[in-house]
């Protein structure tokens, strides 16, 4: 997992765009895109995980705990769902 993270980080060194699950504890980023089954995607967007919001990783893993606007959520996605975030230092 850590190795994967490194590779992903290096390859995206310029844009700093990462899949959400690679965020480490306490790191935060801006959601760029939510991709996957349209019905699940709209569900995620309704509950608050939509492009433009800042997410903070509280506990990585599956399920993970995220924080959006002080509100915590736990998420476990299926394989087809991908959330991309832009790291904000």
């Amino acid at each position, binding site marked *: 997992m850590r190795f994967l993270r490194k590779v992903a980080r290096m390859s995206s060194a310029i844009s700093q765009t990462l899949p959400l699950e690679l965020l480490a504890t306490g790191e935060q980023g801006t959601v760029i895109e939510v991709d996957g089954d349209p019905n699940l995607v709209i569900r995620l967007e309704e509950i608050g995980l939509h492009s433009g919001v800042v997410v903070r990783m509280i506990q990585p893993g599956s*399920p993970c705990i995220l924080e959006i*606007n002080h*509100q*915590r*959520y*736990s*998420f*476990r996605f299926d394989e087809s769902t991908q959330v991309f975030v832009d790291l904000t230092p």
Partner: protein
Amino acid sequence: MVEKVPSQHLARTVAVIGNPNTGKSTLFSALTGVHSRIGNYPGVTVEKKLGWFEFEGQSVRLVDLPGTYSLSPRSIDEMVSVDVLLGRQPDVGPIDAVVCITDASNLERNLYVVSQVLDLGLPTVLVLNMWDVAVDRGIQIDPVELARRLEIAVIPCEAHRRRQLDEVRRGIIQACQLPQRTPPDLFPQTFHEEARQLQTAFQQFGNQNLPIYLIERLLLDVGGQLETALTKPNPAELLTRLKAARERLATAGCRVPGIEAKLRYGWIKQLMQGVMTVPDKRPATVTDTLDRWLTHKFWGLLAFCLTMFLVFQSISTVAEPLMKFFEVGQKQVGGWVGSLLAPGPLRSLIVDGVIAGVGGILVFLPQICLLFLFIALLEDCGYMARAAFLMDKLMTKVGLSGKSFVPLMSSFACAIPGIMATRTIENRRDRMVTILIAPLMSCSARAPVYWLMVAAFFPTVSWAGGWVTLHAIMMFVMTFFGAVVAIPIAWLLKKTLFKSETPPFVMELPAYKWPSPGIVLHRVFDRASAFVLRAGTLILATSILIWSASYFPSDHRAEQQVLVQIQQAEDQFSSQLEQKSQLRSRRELLLEDQPVPVQSAAESSAPIEALAAQLAELDAQLAELDTQLQPLHELFETRNQISERLLADSYLGRFGKWIEPVVKPLGWDWRIGVGVLASFPAREVIVATLGTIYSLGGDVDENSQGLQSALKSATWPDGRPVYSIPVAMSIMVFFALCAQCASTLMVIRRETNHWGWALFTFVYMTLLAYIGAWIAFNATGWLMTFSGNS
């Protein structure tokens, strides 16, 4: 809580809608005085609830609804909300106005559903609840400017402290007078054109006059419930039209469903510009620290198990003495009533049927109150959602998600609200599996059976200085036994009848808070009164039935004569009896003060010798008294023989003998068998039934006190005791696994829309219970002889 119900046509109907866990039910209860269940996790309310209030001469009918993130419903609880809002529920009727409740500390997301509600064009009031939380976080919102931009009333509010309630009331009344609003237009022109075309198509083929917002929702909700509901008249044609419309929209750059979130969040962003300021700095909160431990992979699970064990340990420590006290009370009431009435059917009905039956179950009231106190505390502090998070890992192993955990956890109180709570599960197959295993969770009606068996047949051993007792461990084990059995059952169901992928898991974790005493006490009171009510109705009725079946058709005259003689003898020997009970209690005190010696005999031989001497002295005195009381003992002996024969001759006794072969492999005699059969409508009935049977068919003497001692002295015809640890285990396992609750089966039928599933649950659980009890009886018996021999 007497509500005036004004005449229907004068009252305006107002729906309370908003995201889950924003305080809708709290506000509803505060406004109407009608209690709606409140808890600090999403999905507490799953069914609509009606209440009334009157303000400034206008009466309003308020509808509390399940929380929803959007008006495109995906689960049954959300469907309820949307149906009511759209006026599609006949028992509520059309809605005059809407109160949107939002969490002010997370306003942007909360406004999503508000923007959908505004599209309906109904007069709307926006309540910014949890204002205190927003202020604590340093969030500043300008309600006046927001109201100006939205052209609706915006009211900050703290529902749990009942602040600003009059403003909310006034806002609702004023909104009711307003005409329909023109909704803000977010969607491009092409979208509206498609909607209008589709409307014409519906008029052509479906021959219905559907409002345009329904058509728009239909266009937006791909695969939603509306698709099946609205296209019923001509599914083939209408669905192709719908699909074609969506495709045209996609090519025009307006791809549903994705477009909706984009447009609405864009609108919200614009709306909130300059209305709300959020501090950049994120303050560290208690929730941070607590979550670090409570959601930890290892510590979190440990904390979960420890909490559960603590609950049972404290119930057992606090409630067992209370229960003894209640039992003494029960015996005294029985004796007192008995002395007032002459021996005969009436006295027997009241003493043996009502007091021994219903009283036997009422002695468990302290335990029930404590159990619900703990449940309410856990529900209102915010821990439930964390427990669901922790359990998601385990639940995925059987193909379910953490979402199923909340209903299952509720089922530990009672399976009925638990099954209702499965409405929050989106996936139908997962919901079915959860419904079918929910009755295996140990509900509070099983607890009296465990308490009775554990208290009567398991030794009072404790460890760690009295902090851990065998009784509490047994209660803990029995309570979670059903849940453990549910694991393979769920796995099997998920592999066969309800084959589907493990669903994704999305859940909001509310911030921790101190449980509100009002909410907690209300819940305890609610359940305690339900328990007493059940004892006074259902259990009373069954007790009377059981009593009649075990009293008739035999001739009780001989028995009554003996009873009269016993009464006379008791009056005659009253001083001896008094003395005897004093000696006995002194003896018990002596034994209790002296803990079981664990040190080597040499160290502590002196105190033990002193104790032995005192005991011998007391025993000698007791023996002396007993010889004096010999005539009384003989009378009791005769009474027991007569009663035993009468009971065996009664309808119940004949029936019991007939079924005895079926229950004998489980180690039960016919009385247990009858008790278990009688408790199929409701499981607590076993306690009442055994109470009546033993009170009538009496192995009683002058010291017998309550059901526990009756059970301990019950014997087979050949004199062996009926009850032993294996028998107690077999009874407990049977009750843990059996579907002995008519109301649960009824709810399963209603929630699955089919009798078949209720029948299925009944059959599989009863089979499981029988086999489980057989294994428990034989395995415990084998273990005990094994450990006895070694």
